[in-house]
């Protein structure tokens, strides 16, 4: 039990240690503005990681989330700029497309019983190709203000905090309550622990899995809006490394890749660890290759801790 707790406390301790280290190294690190910046830098991956956590908790994986996000952001900007739709409708359209893409993943997993790895590998490629075709590989600029408003910030105690970062924290709150307090949330863990026994216990596993993949699609839609808000453009080249970035965040956050164990807020901590190292090492003037090196070491440490706690 103690070891199991450690698996969840571990990421938080690692984050705090990293923060302490960088605070000692650079006087610029521990300022409100800088920490708010890190939060803003992880908001896209952070929101995608919520969906990824849900999928991984059921024992699956979503390799398509980044590309689906790109498809969503292109849909939104295309509808708003080229077709002149009201921005709110364009946003809804983009989220509809990403949720639909998630539904396709879910249907392929539950109805045709294909492994999630293969399904999402396929839809990742499809989403990429459709994004390139629809956008003609061009970036959309001059977007209406409603699409970029989440990139603006509100001043709290003289520190600017992006609305998008607040939206991410809010979504983590939702996901936390959903997983902890609702029957459906407990069923996610049950399905991840043992699909067959969950089904025998009367859980409609197909419907549950389908809704998990659809939620992941919806998260990709929200992330699409955040990515537009952050960069100010609809970029068909976005989202290309986000799938593995989210898996990294989820694993660093202590969620087991085998499903059934983990905390959704852990993924936020995981995303923050990556963001803090990227920021802190730049402040120290260290080459960005070392950030990748550190991330690699931490991922292995995180999975090793998971395995270790599983054995005992």
């Amino acid at each position, binding site marked *: 039990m103690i070891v199991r707790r450690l698996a969840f406390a571990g990421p938080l301790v690692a984050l705090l240690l990293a923060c302490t280290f960088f605070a000692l190294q650079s006087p610029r690190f521990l300022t409100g503005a800088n920490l708010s910046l890190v939060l803003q830098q992880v908001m896209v991956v952070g929101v995608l990681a919520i969906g990824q956590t849900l999928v991984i908790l059921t024992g699956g994986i979503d390799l398509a989330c980044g590309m689906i996000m790109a498809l969503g952001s292109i849909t939104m900007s295309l509808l708003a700029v080229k077709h002149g739709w009201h921005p709110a409708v364009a946003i809804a359209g983009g989220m509809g497309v990403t949720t639909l893409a998630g539904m396709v993943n879910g249907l392929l997993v539950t109805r045709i019983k294909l492994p999630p790895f293969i399904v999402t590998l396929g839809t990742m*490629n499809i989403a990429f190709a459709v994004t390139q075709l629809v956008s003609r590989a061009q970036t959309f600029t001059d977007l209406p203000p409603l699409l970029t408003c989440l990139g603006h910030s509100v001043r709290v105690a003289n520190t600017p905090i992006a609305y998008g970062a607040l939206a991410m924290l809010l979504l983590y709150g939702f996901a936390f309550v959903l997983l902890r307090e609702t029957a459906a949330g407990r069923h996610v863990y049950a399905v991840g622990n043992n699909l067959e026994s969950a089904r025998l216990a009367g859980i409609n596993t197909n419907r549950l899995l389908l809704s998990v993949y659809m939620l992941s699609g919806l998260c990709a839609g929200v992330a699409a809006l955040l990515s537009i808000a952050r960069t100010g*453009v609809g*970029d068909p080249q976005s989202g*290309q490394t986000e799938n593995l970035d989210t898996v990294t965040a989820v694993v660093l956050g202590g969620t087991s890749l085998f499903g059934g164990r983990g905390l959704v807020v852990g993924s936020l901590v995981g995303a923050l660890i990556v963001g803090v190292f990227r920021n802190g090492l730049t402040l120290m003037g260290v080459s960005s290759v070392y950030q990748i090196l550190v991330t690699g070491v931490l991922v292995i440490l995180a999975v090793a801790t998971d395995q270790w706690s599983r054995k005992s």
Partner: protein
Amino acid sequence: MRIPALLRLPPRRLLALAIPWFVACSPKGDEKPVIGLITKTASNPFFVKMKEGAEQAAAAQGATLIAAAGRSDGDNAGQVTAIENLMAAGAKAILISASDSKAIVPAINKARDAGILVIALDSPTDPVDATDALFATDNYKAGQLIGQYAKARLGATPAKIATLDLIPGHPTGAQRHNGFLSGFGLPSYEKTRNELAQPPEVVCMTDAMGDQAKGQTAMENCLQAHPDINVVYAVNEPSAAGAFNALKNAGKEKGVLIVSVDGSCRGVQNVVYGALTATAQQYPLRMAELGVEAAMTFIKTATKASGYVDTGVQLIAKDSVAGVASLGAEKALGLCWGDK
């Protein structure tokens, strides 16, 4: 080359597989010579422009152009398949923008042994003489042009430079970076070196992979460490656009020089808007035209093109400075690639 964000995707050979079909289905009888064009991707606007130019030039000269591409930058297997299929299709000449400068060489050797003229466009192979000729932008020179311009604009003010680079070990990224520093008058490495020089004036050196979002994140972090940065070099225009966003959010977009390389329509428009101080424009259309011309010469007279041909690079800036020749952004818009 407009450097796309790097994909980590499985190779895609479908496009290449389609070539024999295309040839088999074309009407027989007309003995038009076949010229092949293999680009890194089919979607990148840079290569779209290149293909356009090659198709027009081939049509004007009475040849058939067959275009193929890898799925993503780095898809070597797809390009190898494309070479094999073009050989099967009876191509007399192949123009190729190699995704992997080393790994493509054995396939190119096979084609050349079969008597096919192979010309590298945009990207050299390693070794360079694996192809008959190379028609490409001089990336080191492109870097030097924007370096000279930035230095002239900055004048006597001490430079605090941030560089947003590509990925470690990429020749294009190294040539542009080192060229920029050399043009700026700082100690730098020679053209052939694949490492990045870092004189003390470069206060923040970071990899942004040519991606806009990553460029923004990198610039934000650089600004946290060094709020007084006054020159930004970005390896391509998307990462430069990210840097401008970061500066704007920090309220520092005035007075910081941002220079980059590419000359895409979006980049040139950013020069017009003032979001980009200067860029070095390259010309994919010209690479393609010269390539097709060389191919036709070979087909008609069996004379092979050889060596390196610089396809030109031009400094684009809104405000010209004394001693550095530059082209106005409005003129450059007529020469840019991508949607306007």
